[in-house]
């Protein structure tokens, strides 16, 4: 009779691996053999986690078809099984896994579509914060303004891709007719994904604004973000960009 800890360790191995005779011997096999009984649990563990990934990454699933998705998900689940019971947090490594998964290496945009879906998914469950009231910044000296750093709303993700992943996402929504093929050379997409009221939305940012916001989101001061944005585009208007940032509701705090 195995101790509970050893029994559970053996059961865990069996969920992701072959049957072990020692474990099978602990299971009563009347009417149905122990291996068939164990298989019911194994099947449920793998299919239910696959369904979790399918719910979080529906466009990826549509792009590769369901059969291939299940195959990729199975490999992912074995490599990165969940570490905690809140399954809305499961799947963070799936985009990077897809990028390195040899059978879909030819779908170069796939991992970035997965990143977009993960960003949208995490925005749904992100902590809710009140946006910063721009009036709180009134009366700061110019030198202080240059040193400002900002805290972004936790639902915000800034995502850059060499592929038009926003277009790929849109034409692959359920109920959407398959449009004319997307021109994959149509250009990169620098996207901002965020919660907006009860929805999650994304939009394209122009390259200078994207640089400005990613520099700020990395915790750098306003002066450095403005410099980086100017380097990306000489026409960058820092005053307008700062005004837009503060009225967009994506900033929840600042430090001097």
């Amino acid at each position, binding site marked *: 009779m195995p101790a509970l800890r050893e029994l559970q360790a053996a059961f*865990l191995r069996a969920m992701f691996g072959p049957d072990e005779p020692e474990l099978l011997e602990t299971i009563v096999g009347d009417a149905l053999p122990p291996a068939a009984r164990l298989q019911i649990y194994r099947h449920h563990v793998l299919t239910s986690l696959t369904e979790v990934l399918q719910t979080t990454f529906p466009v990826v699933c549509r792009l590769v078809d369901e059969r291939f998705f299940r195959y990729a998900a199975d490999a992912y689940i074995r490599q990165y099984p969940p*570490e*905690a019971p809140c399954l*809305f947090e499961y799947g963070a490594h799936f985009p990077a896994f897809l990028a390195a998964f040899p059978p879909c290496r030819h779908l170069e945009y796939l991992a970035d579509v997965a990143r977009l879906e993960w960003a949208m998914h995490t*925005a749904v*469950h992100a902590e809710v914060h009140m946006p910063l009231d721009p009036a709180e910044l009134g009366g700061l000296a110019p030198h202080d303004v240059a040193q400002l750093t900002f805290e972004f709303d936790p639902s915000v993700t800034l995502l850059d891709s060499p592929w038009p992943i926003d277009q790929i996402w849109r034409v692959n929504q359920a109920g959407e007719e398959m449009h004319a093929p997307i021109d994959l050379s149509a250009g990169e997409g620098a996207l901002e994904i965020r919660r907006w009221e009860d929805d999650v939305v994304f939009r394209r940012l122009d390259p200078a604004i994207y640089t400005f916001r990613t520099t700020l989101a990395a915790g750098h001061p306003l002066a450095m973000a403005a410099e980086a944005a100017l380097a990306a585009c000489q026409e960058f208007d820092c005053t307008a960009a700062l005004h837009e940032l503060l009225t967009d509701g994506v900033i929840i705090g600042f430090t001097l």
Partner: protein
Amino acid sequence: MVHRSTSAKLGVGIGLRAPHVAEMLATRPAIGWLEVHAENYMGEGAPLAALERLRADYPLSVHGVGLSLGSAEALDNRHLSRLQRLRARLEPTFVSEHLSWSMARGVYLNHLLPLPYTEETLAVVAQHVIHTQEVLQCRLLIENPSSYLRFAHSAIPEPEFLGELVRRTGCGLLCDVNNIYVSCCNLGDDPVTYLDTLPACAVGEIHLAGHAVNDADGQTILIDDHGAPVSDAVWALYGHALAHFGSVPTLIEWDTHIPELAVLCAEARTAERFMQRTEEEGYAGVA
């Protein structure tokens, strides 16, 4: 403590699932109460905000599926404190969990896995239930699992194990009638004997759901998929349960092939008719 006199008035509720939230908010159907899976509401944002709106109109039960009370290892304290925060925020009428395990060596197996019913397991589960009740500052209802296997060294029948757990921890029981039926069919036990062995006064909630009938190597096996109407056999067993336990608050669960909200409401009406009939006939008369 579960106060039967007040909780019985809850009648029949439904498990709240994501596809029904918008319709629930818009139509507020006449449902006795709602139950949610705790783990789905441990994030922030729209799901929790919607639940807080519904909570104003419906009594709420928080049903955990991930605490892994049967793990030989220590409980996941991060998860337990998230459960505590949710309980404090939602102030549910009931908090429930399962007689099962799902965590081992830092891996969460998304399933309610079976336990050997031994003195060692009883000590482990009792300790975890006591600790959880201390942290949550409330009485837990513990649900009987659906089983597809039995361990050869399981020495204690499941309903007796649950009875002893109640005695040691002061917890209540969530009697899942469908799980009893599924387990007894799969393991060759008698569901009526099972029900009659449970300590009736500890049962604070009943679950009802549908199951699938599958074939495995030529052997019929029932799968607890919550994906169909409650079967006739389970309704009959529910009638027996009500006669034995009294009009315990009852929940309809549906998790796969989720139908229209109206279908769940109709199942709830059926359960209400069983409850009314039991009350009219008197508990002893139906048994």
